[in-house]
């Protein structure tokens, strides 16, 4: 029963939600709406579960003095402090003068932005190191990449503004690449990926893909 009940629930709810797309009648739509609302609640509780899990895993590591346990202590302290401050400040935590907003503006936001900004450096080093033109296809790819990269910024306009034919200017070329070959390829990949999602979803709903439940068959 440990596996049968979850499989049964998955099948029933999955098929029901598919049905709700086609059947507007209240016999189907009302329970479907209830399930949607329940999903929202479940996801919210997932964060509570995540926080509890983070505390448990890191407490264990600190207790057992695993390598790097000091950093885990910092994590635990930060987690507890942020949650406690947020709870204490209640609904008005987003007012400018609160400690929660101080944490958000001076710790969370800069760290978040800094990690994202690393991408700029990594793109340059990847471009230098790894982008090799070894075949005709790679050459076409590189040409398209250069046109789009330069055409998207004002430099592209400056470089080709003198050309008498507007279609040959970088901004027009990059727009054509984005509208045509790029669009077609993207659409094809989207369709293929969507079908992959449907096939995997069907396997999960029908209980064919069941290894995620537990290891024993």
């Amino acid at each position: 029963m440990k596996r049968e009940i979850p499989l049964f629930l998955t099948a029933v709810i999955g098929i029901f939600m598919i049905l709700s797309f086609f059947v507007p009648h209240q016999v189907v739509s009302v329970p479907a709406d209830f399930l949607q609302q329940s999903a929202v609640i479940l996801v919210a509780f997932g964060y509570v579960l995540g926080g509890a899990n983070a505390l448990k895993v890191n407490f264990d590591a600190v207790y057992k003095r695993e390598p790097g346990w000091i950093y885990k202590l910092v994590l635990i302290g930060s987690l507890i402090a942020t949650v406690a401050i947020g709870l204490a400040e209640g609904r008005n935590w987003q007012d400018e003068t609160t400690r929660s907003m101080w944490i958000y503006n001076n710790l969370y936001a800069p760290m978040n932005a800094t990690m994202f900004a690393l991408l700029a450096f990594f793109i340059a080093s990847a471009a230098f190191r790894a982008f090799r033109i070894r075949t005709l296809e790679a050459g076409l790819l590189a040409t398209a990449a250069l046109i789009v990269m330069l055409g998207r910024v004002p430099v592209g306009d400056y470089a080709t503004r003198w050309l008498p034919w507007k279609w040959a200017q970088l901004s027009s070329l990059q727009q054509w690449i984005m509208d045509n070959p790029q669009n077609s390829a993207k659409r094809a990949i989207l369709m293929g990926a969507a079908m992959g999602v449907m096939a995997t979803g069907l396997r999960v709903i029908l209980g064919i893909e069941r290894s995620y439940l537990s290891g024993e068959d």
Partner: protein
Amino acid sequence: MSGIAERNPNRSSQEAHLAGESNRPRSRGLIHAAAVQAVVWLALGAAAPASHAAGMPPPAPPSGLTWSDTPNDAGRSVELAWKLSPDDTLATGRVTGYLIERSETPAGPWTLVDSTAAGVSGREDQSVQRDTDYFYRVTAVGPGGRTPALSVTGPVRAVSQWINQTRWSVLVFLVVFFGAVLFYMASAQAGRKPFVRRIPGIDAIEEAIGRATEMGRPVLYIPGITDIDDMQTVAGLVILESVAKITARYETQVTVPVSYPIPFAIADEMVKSGYLSAGKPELYDPRSVSFVSPEQFAFVAAITGIMLRDRPAAHIFMGSFFAESLLLAETGFSTGAIQVAGTAQVAQLPFFVVACDYTLIGEELYAASAYLSGEPKLVGSLKGADLLKLIIMAVIIVGCLLESFGIHGLTVWMNTQ
């Protein structure tokens, strides 16, 4: 596009309660209607029902009020249309708007349910109860006052429909798809296993694990950074079981940092299961799977730290990734590890292709779980998806030809609401 909403579902007291709202939709509706009435009177500049602006008579009434049940809904709205008042012109300025009133009997009492501006000759009433008879009247209002409606229309009744008639095309494709998948699964189980082409990235996984074993260093496996509701995470976790089985066979350590709690629990089970299938449950280390953080860049900071400290010899990224993909792949490259990636996040594919040794593109990620397990049912499902792709390609070609010749039937049929 008109921006008209999909019909609201059943709003009886039970559902309203489920939605956490008041358990008295009727009184809410009356309060709402009263508020609407107050606003409407102010907005339309009518001081009192029978008052007149200096010298200007009230406008002629609208006529020809008709109704229809809104299709493809759960019986929660009706559509009303009427002919404009003959005085509704810019030149006269005698009409500022129309009031729509509703009652459950032809004689009233009448409740104002909505209003429109001048020049508008239709409205949808989404506040009706299903299977209840109503009567409607529409009056014109202007600076000169308000003119009673010529007649009352009704009984008007909203009913539920069982099928959304605009979604037949989706249903047909879905039935064909499911039918094809089930057919080929059954066919594969009966012994006619379909051919699946080699996917180099999947073959490279065992090569990467072998290399890690030779170097005596662990394997790092990341099943994406989204939660279990993303199919890519499910695919990544299924592949993890096969990877764990191979690492168990080679007696190599595998490290699996996970970003969400539910995938963490499942990943733990998958690794355990992999070691069990390889016949080496005693080698399973519970610390090999760890929960890190659902915060994107906190997660990637932790992973890059693992890469730089522990120096795994093989990195396997299978699942949904976002902006952190290049951070992971570039950092991984700098450590000299062999890297295999697979994702259906189209925007991240270029970064993995550039920085990894092998990349599974889009659908290959979903195919990988079937490919690795070799299970006939899973392999059969791949063929079903391929068949639907062929059908879609054929429909696109036929559709383009038909459109080129001005035949729009297929396009109209495939347009959904």
